[in-house]
Structures are given as structure tokens and as C-alpha cells.
């Protein structure tokens, strides 16, 4: 079975002789059936498609991008060839030019890419609004990765954008997919070959990542993931970007269904958002954390969690063995004092989803980022006896330190404490892969465990938010965790359900 691998280098120019030489070198490598390096013009994309070397990644290239397209007899050959291509392109063996790396200002970026229509702002929060305003003035849509942008600035920027037929994604928009292209912290979906007909609107961060990953595992494909920021659906902002996103997605004929992933909207905003969604002419699925089915208006399908949302969107379901036999087996390994679940999350939305899943199972929870009926973990009296689900990416853990998605060692202290705590029965961990994430997030977990015998430690359940085409490789990360005796769940929701079942067996 042939494997097609594409890589797109944005704004990358290589002279013809170097292009041809490298194409020929790669084509001559063992196991390579076809290899080309071509600029991504519409005609060339059609040519590569007709020649059977283009996949969804390559389809997103533009005329000023270089497409590396390979067809090989297997993943091993393809990866070797791609590595050779990248080494040649980056090692200076070929004289080339990568334009985007050198822009130092917004103005410089616009000069280098006059055709660009989006600016990604990632500056300290106090400067982000000013840069976003400059981008809007230059006619660019804006994705604000930065946090700590004031509510007033957010509202003003979104109103200015709307008046110019532009959109502001964010602030604190950590993840987005536009036309299949991942932006900021995002998973690679390049291995997915099915047509991308699903679009999502989300806050957005790991919720959107988890949805995109689960959808891809179920055979679906995400075309757009528009991040609107965590406050957009509040009454203060009035869902300005969400409403614009619905209009944009409704107008995209290739989008067949829209998935909304969010916290509960403000009371006044909810009506307008759901009315627009229900009348947008597409199938709509809403995963609103904390909503019940009865809260959902007619015409919108209800998803209780991200797994449900992915299953509804794909039309397929995960084949689960059922948690009971495994939960019973794991409960037997828990020491006699172990009663508590501790969740140590790098993803905020995953932390929320776990709290709600445990509450649904009848368990009390506490968190530094409370959701549903969770107690505030800072209040020791209220939190006593609750299962502790922590968002280690929250501000109080990341001031002056890297985010745990970028540096898993940040989680080591909390993980070690939980391992040494005899009252802990289950530890849940998220392992987030993809662009921007640590190159080997499982390593820090496995290294900590090397000092703890399997027989004297809590049950550890992990969910990996990642795909096989992510830079870290899903299978490699899964193997590292399972080799260390960690149970790896298909989804975050599944991890929470299994953890709940284990402590209920213990009880």
C-alpha cells in the first residue's frame, strides 16, 4: 500500500536547479515511487493530484509555497525521504530563501507577504491590542494568541473588525485551523485523507485540539476551527466573533456541519447564538460544557462531551470494550487507603471536561478552575473529600514558568506528590502532542515513574491528544506510556469515565 506524504514550506523559494536536483535525489531513494518539489500554484496542485502525490496537507499550499510531495512504499521510506529533503533544505546545502522567518515587525511581514490576509499576534498581552489594531488597519484578520488582553480592548477590537468585514480570533486563542492549516498549538491532520466537511467554533485551545484529534480518529476531517476566545460568548462581548464565524461557515459550501464547543454562553448571548446556528442551513452540533440535553434548542444536536461531538460529526463511534472489566481489574491494584482521583492537566478544557464527567458519575470534584458543581480547590474546607482536578496551565502555575504543554517538567512536582500520597487511587494525565507542544512529553512522566514500583503506586490513566502525523508521533508516545504501565485511553472523556469506575469499585 503506497503512502503519500506532503509538506508545505510557506513563502519558500528555491532556484530551479536546486529544486530539480533535490527532487531527483529524493526520487532515487529506496522505496520512493514518486517525489517532487514544486511551488503550490493551482495548476501544480492539480498536476500533483492527478499524479497521485497530493494529500490534504499539500492541497493547502499557495503559489508562493514550496510543496514537498512523496509517494512511497511505506511510512518508513516516506519519512526517510522527507527527513533527507528537510535536511537539505535547512542545512544550507541548497541556496534557498524562507521569507517569513525574517520579518521582525507586522509591517515587515506585510511587505514580505502582501497577499496575506491574517496576522497572528503573540506578544505580551499589554502590547497585543495595539498590534491587533495595526493589523486590522492593514486589512488583516487577526488571531490573538496572547492572553491578558482587557475585556474592553477585546470588545473594541472585535467591533472594529466586524465593521471592516474582518474577524478577530481570541484573545487567548491557542489553536485554530483555517482551511485545514493548523495555527499555533494544533495537531497535524495531514494523515487524514477524507474530505474536510466539518467546521468548529471554539474558545479555543485543547478543546478544539481534542475534538480535531478524535474526529480524525473516527475518519472525519476538520476544515476550519475558528477560535473566538474564552470570553466571546459572554454577555459583555456579545459573541461578536462567534456570530461572524457562523456567517462565514454558513457561506462556505464545502462545510456541511458546524460544531460549537464552548462553556455556557451568557444568558442574553445564548439566544442570539443558538437562533443563528439553528437557521444557518447546516447540520449543527453543540458541545456546551454544563448544558443538559434539555437546555439545547430544537434543530441543534446535543453532545455531552468532546467524544460525543466527534462521534456525532463523523457518524462513527469508538469501539470501547466498556470500562467495567478493566476498572475492576485496576481497582484490585489500588492500596487500601486509596480513594481519591487526582487529575493533572495541561489543557484547560480537558480539565473542565473531566470535572463534568466525574460529576456525571456522581463524584464530588474540586479544582483551581472549577466547572459545574466543583468546589474551589483553594478553599480547603469545601474541597475536602473531593476529587482534585487541576489545570496546571492556569495563570497561578505558569507565572514565570513555561506552560506544561511546552515543558512537561512543570508537572513533575505535582505528579510526584500524587504518586507519594497514599490516599490517591487514580492519577489522570493529559499528554498533548502537536505543533508547539514539547518534543517528547511522555518522557518526563516515564522518568518520574522509573523511581516508583508499579505495585506501590496509584493507577495512572493518560489520554493522548495527538495524531500519528504530529511531530511527536502518536504511536511512539503511546508505546512509551504503556511500557511504563500507564493505561492510555482513547479520549479524555474515556479516561475520566474509567477513573470514576475505578474509585467506585474501590469504594
Amino acid at each position, binding site marked *: 500500500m503506497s503512502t503519500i506524504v506532503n509538506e508545505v514550506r510557506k513563502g519558500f523559494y528555491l532556484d530551479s536547479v536546486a529544486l530539480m536536483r533535490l527532487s531527483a535525489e529524493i526520487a532515487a531513494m529506496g522505496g520512493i515511487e*514518486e517525489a517532487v518539489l514544486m511551488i503550490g500554484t493551482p495548476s501544480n496542485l492539480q498536476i*500533483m493530484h492527478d499524479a497521485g502525490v497530493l494529500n490534504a496537507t499539500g492541497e493547502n499550499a499557495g503559489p*508562493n509555497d514550496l510543496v514537498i510531495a512523496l509517494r512511497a512504499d511505506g511510512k518508513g521510506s516516506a519519512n526517510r525521504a522527507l527527513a533527507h529533503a528537510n535536511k537539505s533544505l535547512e542545512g544550507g546545502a541548497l541556496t534557498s530563501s524562507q*521569507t517569513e522567518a525574517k520579518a*521582525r515587525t507586522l509591517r515587515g511581514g506585510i511587505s514580505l507577504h*502582501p497577499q496575506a490576509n491574517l496576522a497572528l499576534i503573540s506578544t505580551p498581552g499589554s502590547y497585543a491590542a495595539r498590534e491587533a489594531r495595526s493589523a486590522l488597519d492593514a486589512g488583516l484578520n487577526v488571531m490573538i494568541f496572547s492572553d491578558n488582553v482587557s475585556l474592553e480592548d477585546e470588545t473594541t477590537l472585535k467591533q472594529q473588525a466586524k465593521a471592516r468585514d474582518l474577524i478577530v480570533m481570541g484573545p487567548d486563542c491557542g489553536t485554530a485551523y483555517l482551511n485545514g492549516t493548523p495555527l499555533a498549538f494544533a495537531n497535524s491532520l495531514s494523515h487524514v485523507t477524507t474530505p474536510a466537511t466539518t467546521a468548529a467554533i471554539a474558545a479555543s485551545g485543547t478543546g478544539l485540539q481534542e475534538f480535531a484529534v478524535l474526529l480524525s480518529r473516527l475518519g472525519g476531517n476538520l476544515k476550519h476551527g475558528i477560535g473566538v476566545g474564552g470570553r466571546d460568548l459572554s454577555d459583555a462581548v456579545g459573541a461578536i466573533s462567534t456570530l461572524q464565524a457562523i456567517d462565514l461557515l454558513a457561506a462556505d459550501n464545502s462545510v456541511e456541519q458546524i460544531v460549537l464547543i464552548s462553556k455556557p454562553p451568557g444568558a442574553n448571548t445564548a439566544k442570539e447564538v443558538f437562533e443563528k446556528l439553528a437557521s444557518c442551513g447546516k447540520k449543527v452540533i453543540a458541545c456546551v460544557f454544563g448544558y443538559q440535553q434539555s437546555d439545547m434548542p430544537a434543530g441543534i444536536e446535543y453532545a455531552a462531551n468532546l467524544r460525543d461531538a466527534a462521534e456525532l460529526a463523523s457518524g462513527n463511534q469508538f469501539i470501547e470494550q466498556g470500562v467495567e472489566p478493566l476498572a475492576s481489574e485496576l481497582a484490585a491494584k489500588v492500596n487500601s487507603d486509596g480513594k481519591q482521583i487526582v487529575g493533572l492537566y495541561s489543557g484547560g478544557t480537558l480539565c473542565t471536561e473531566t470535572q463534568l464527567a466525574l460529576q456525571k458519575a456522581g463524584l464530588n470534584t474540586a479544582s483551581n478552575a472549577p466547572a459545574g458543581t466543583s468546589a474551589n480547590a483553594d478553599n480547603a474546607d469545601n474541597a475536602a473529600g473531593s476529587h482534585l482536578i487541576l489545570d496546571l496551565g492556569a495563570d497561578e502555575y505558569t507565572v514565570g514558568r513555561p506552560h506544561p504543554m511546552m515543558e512537561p517538567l512543570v508537572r513533575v512536582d505535582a505528579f510526584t506528590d500524587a504518586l507519594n500520597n497514599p490516599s490517591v487511587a487514580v492519577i489522570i494525565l493529559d499528554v498533548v502532542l502537536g505543533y508547539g507542544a514539547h518534543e517528547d512529553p511522555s518522557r518526563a512522566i516515564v522518568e518520574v515513574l522509573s523511581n516508583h514500583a508499579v505495585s506501590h503506586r496509584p493507577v495512572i490513566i493518560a489520554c493522548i491528544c495527538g495524531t500519528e502525523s504530529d511531530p511527536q508521533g502518536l504511536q511512539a508516545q503511546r508505546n512509551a506510556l504503556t511500557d511504563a504501565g500507564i493505561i492510555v485511553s482513547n479520549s479524555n472523556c474515556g479516561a475520566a469515565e474509567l477513573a470514576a469506575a475505578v474509585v467506585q469499585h474501590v469504594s
Partner: protein
Amino acid sequence: MIKATITSLGDVARNVLQEGAGVVLAVFNSSLYLQCRQSLCCVGTSSLPRGPLNAVSTLQKFGRIAAGDHWQFADNHLTIGNYCVLSVAHTARWVSPTPPEHPVDLQQLQNIAATIHHCLKRHYVPPDKAVAIEIESRINHGEQALQQWLINNSDTPAVFVEQLLGSGDGLTPAGDDLLLGAVVTLKYLQIEPYASLLGNTIVSLCSTRTNQISQAHLCAAASGHANELLYHLLQQCTGNREPNDALLACIAQLLNYGHSSGVYTLRGTAIVLSFVAGLSAGSVSQS
């Protein structure tokens, strides 16, 4: 800082420099592109042919210049990054040769076109890989459509221009090179309204169908300007002489220009020459 000289400057290149400042878009072994807004200037070593976008310099290499570096032009000096200062104080302006004022001998032109086709045929290597076969197929269709458009005097060349633009490997795709050869030859021979129709169509479509660098060359070509190698050939073609060694040398120069740019440029030129050679006497270059 290395000090050097620009020996030849095309008009498009001069206009870019006169904008005063910009960034380096791309750097290659023996040339680089300077950008200011949408316009480009190509600075090269002495191996770079003279042309509308080109600033031929005495530099030997472009070490330590990277895409994104800034350039500025003031007081007859071009400064690129922290690497070099190029003087244009004694630079020659290069302009495209003017079309022939005498009538072109169509019988001789027919012989010359046949010679070029013969050379192209000898130079041709059949594609053996799927992508190369697809490219060749697309180029062949485009060539045939160009021929039919010329012969049938059709209204718009948009369909085949769109098909050819951005088709093929290389920095300037094969289809772009072919269109460049065709439109510059039509312009040089003043074959109207074909030259204007084709030029206008290329300009209107190229911004979305090919990369910035190829666009810049195509826009110059649509105005009748290309690098000197093509004019050397066109001057031989319109010299009303039998095919001779000078012609063969010009053909060989083009065939060996770039990886395949010269070949496809020649293919575009050959189609137009064959068409023009078939026109009735007196319809060519009577200005």
C-alpha cells in the same frame, strides 16, 4: 561591507530601487530578489543576463544575505543588509531592443521556425515519472490551445493562459516560461491584437496563478520586455537571413538557460514564429 558595482540596470529594476527601501525576498546561488511592495528587482553576478528586472553586478556571491534583510537605495548606492554596497554611479541602463523596422522575410522566418522546432525536438527528453508526464500533458494541451487561438483568431486566450500559468516545476514554472516566450515574440513582431490580448490576459490572471517572482517576469513580458537572450534570438529571426551558426548559438544559449526556463521560453517563441511565418507577406513589422 563589500563594495561593488552594478554594471547594468533594467528599467523595472531601476524603478524598484528608486522606491528607496524594501526587503530581500529570496536569495539564490548567483542572484537575489529585492522587493518593494509588489515590485521586484533581481540583483545578480555577472552571469545574470541583462534584462528589465535585472541589476547585473560585479559581486561574486551573496554570502550572509538572507531573505528578510533590508535594502536601501540612496545617493546612487544600493546597500543590502550588512553585506554589500553597490554603486550605480556608472551603471549602464539596459532597455529592450526595439522591433525591426524592415519587413520580415516570411520565407526565411519559416526556415528559422523549422530550425528551432528541430533543435527543440533533439533536445526533448520524454518524461518518465507520473508528475513529469502530467506536466508535459498540460503543457502540450496549452501549446495546442495557443496555436489554435492564433490560427482561429479567437476572442480570448483566458482558458489556455489559465491552464499554463503556474504549471510545472522550477522557480518559474514551465507554463509561465512558455507564455513569456510567446507574448514577448508577439510584442517584438508587433502582431496585434494578439500581443495585447495575450499580455493583458496574462497580467490579469498571473497574480493568483503563479508565484511573486514569476509574476514579476510575466508582467514585464506582457509589456514586451524580457532578458537579452530572447532578444538575441529574435534579432536573428528577423534578420532576413538563412539559418546560420549565429542563430544556432542563440538557440543553444536559450536551451541551456536555467534548468528548463530557456527551453519552454523557446517553445513559446517557436509557436508564434510558426504562426507568423504562415501569415501573408506585409502583415509583419510594418511600423
